[in-house]
């Protein structure tokens, strides 16, 4: 099996499908044509840029380049978590909670997956670390966003019940237990669904890429399983940490519910 390189002309033909998407939006007045155009342009620019950046970094021998780009990826993912909240936290924590969770979980699971299981030479090989970190961040940021959104929405909706428990002497974690349970459940559902559908409903993106690149399907499957295990662990850990952190920010040291720490106009 050999790798078949794509020409820019091939890509241009494929890009016409985006026009179909835009035509549907206009025909049915969905009102998403502008968003679609912006999203498609962003995707082309971002993917194009990252292709060149990765090509440059793969040729470097210093781990600092790998770490530098990893930090940029984490910072952007953290911002995305904040942007997905309808009522983000006020102040630095609006950005800090998601970013610190992604930093910790992304680093832990990437080091575990690459350093202990894949074991490339050298250990900091950007070709392994950055794609795997990217997969971790993409999935965990979805989990964190969903968990935090569910936590804050539930806390606002169930405010009277949560405060009733607090008024009866419940500690904050007990008062928020149901909201936290809902948040963690919602945050972990996408990865559970993805695992259940893998290989039957869809072939995961990385596995598809490897197969198209000429890798033996069984070897590609092994890599995909490794990634799915890492993702499951990373998402669960990230959702737990973000929910615990969110619950702490929603309350104070006197165990009071502090919805004033949410930016309601956000």
């Amino acid at each position, binding site marked *: 099996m050999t790798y078949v390189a794509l020409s820019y002309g091939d890509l241009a033909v494929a890009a016409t499908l985006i026009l179909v998407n835009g035509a549907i939006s206009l025909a049915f007045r969905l009102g998403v044509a502008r968003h679609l155009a912006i999203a498609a342009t962003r995707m082309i620019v971002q993917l194009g840029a990252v292709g060149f950046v990765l090509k440059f970094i793969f040729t470097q021998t210093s781990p600092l380049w790998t770490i530098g780009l990893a930090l940029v990826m984490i910072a952007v993912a953290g911002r995305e978590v904040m942007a997905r909240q309808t009522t983000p936290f006020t102040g630095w924590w609006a950005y800090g909670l998601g970013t610190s969770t992604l930093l910790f979980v992304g680093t832990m699971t990437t080091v575990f997956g690459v350093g202990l299981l894949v074991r490339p030479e050298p250990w900091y090989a950007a070709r392994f670390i950055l794609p795997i970190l990217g997969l971790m961040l993409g999935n965990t940021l979805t989990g964190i966003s969903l968990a935090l959104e569910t936590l804050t929405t539930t806390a606002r909706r169930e405010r009277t019940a949560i405060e*009733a428990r607090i008024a*009866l002497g419940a500690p904050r974690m007990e008062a928020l237990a149901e909201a936290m349970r809902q948040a963690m459940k919602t945050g972990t559902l996408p990865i559970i669904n993805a695992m259940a559908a893998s290989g039957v409903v869809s072939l995961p993106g990385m596995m598809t890429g490897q197969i198209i690149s000429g890798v033996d399907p069984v070897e590609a499957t092994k890599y995909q399983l490794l990634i799915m295990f890492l993702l499951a662990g990373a998402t669960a850990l990230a959702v737990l940490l973000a929910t615990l952190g969110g619950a702490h920010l929603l309350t104070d040291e006197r165990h009071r519910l502090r919805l004033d720490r949410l930016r309601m106009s956000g």
Partner: protein
Amino acid sequence: MLKVEHLVIRAAAPISFEVADGACMVIEGPSGSGKTSILRALADLDPVEGFVFVDGAERMEMSGPEWRRLVRYAAAEPAWWSATPRAHFPADAEVDIERLIASLGLPRTMLDQPLAELSTGERLRLALARSLAGHPKVLLFDEPTAALDPEAGALAEELIRFQKQAGRSVVLVTHDAGQASRLGDFRLGLSDTNAEAVS
């Protein structure tokens, strides 16, 4: 005894008062004057400036949950988080609960009935009983009988009177002048901008 010093609510002038053991202070004032805010502040549910003591101990000397087990706030509109009433009472207060709900004219079997099947009045009386479980020293009632029929309201008043006799300090917000005179020993009058104690 409940003692309050320089409590600042909504940027109004600081409020100070004392409610002795077995006494009831009624807070009066127009809607929006801060009556509920005072009750919430006393229960340490909102961050406010000022000092609140119970039997000489200031609220900051203990954790929030410990304070709220001493100073119990019963909201005007009680909320529930489980399907049946029993789950809303502390597990270690079983005997206490059945006695309490019986004194409010409710059968003990109601503890295991779905809350959705109970009337507003029944739920209000259960919430009143819930606020008394665990023997708090100070009780903060926010219009406890507003939605009750006269008979249930009289039972609730009797229960509050019994709590006074048992030595608990009571702070009551009510729009019922008759209830204020029946239960209250003194009043705290609130205007839109200030508070004054009226004996």
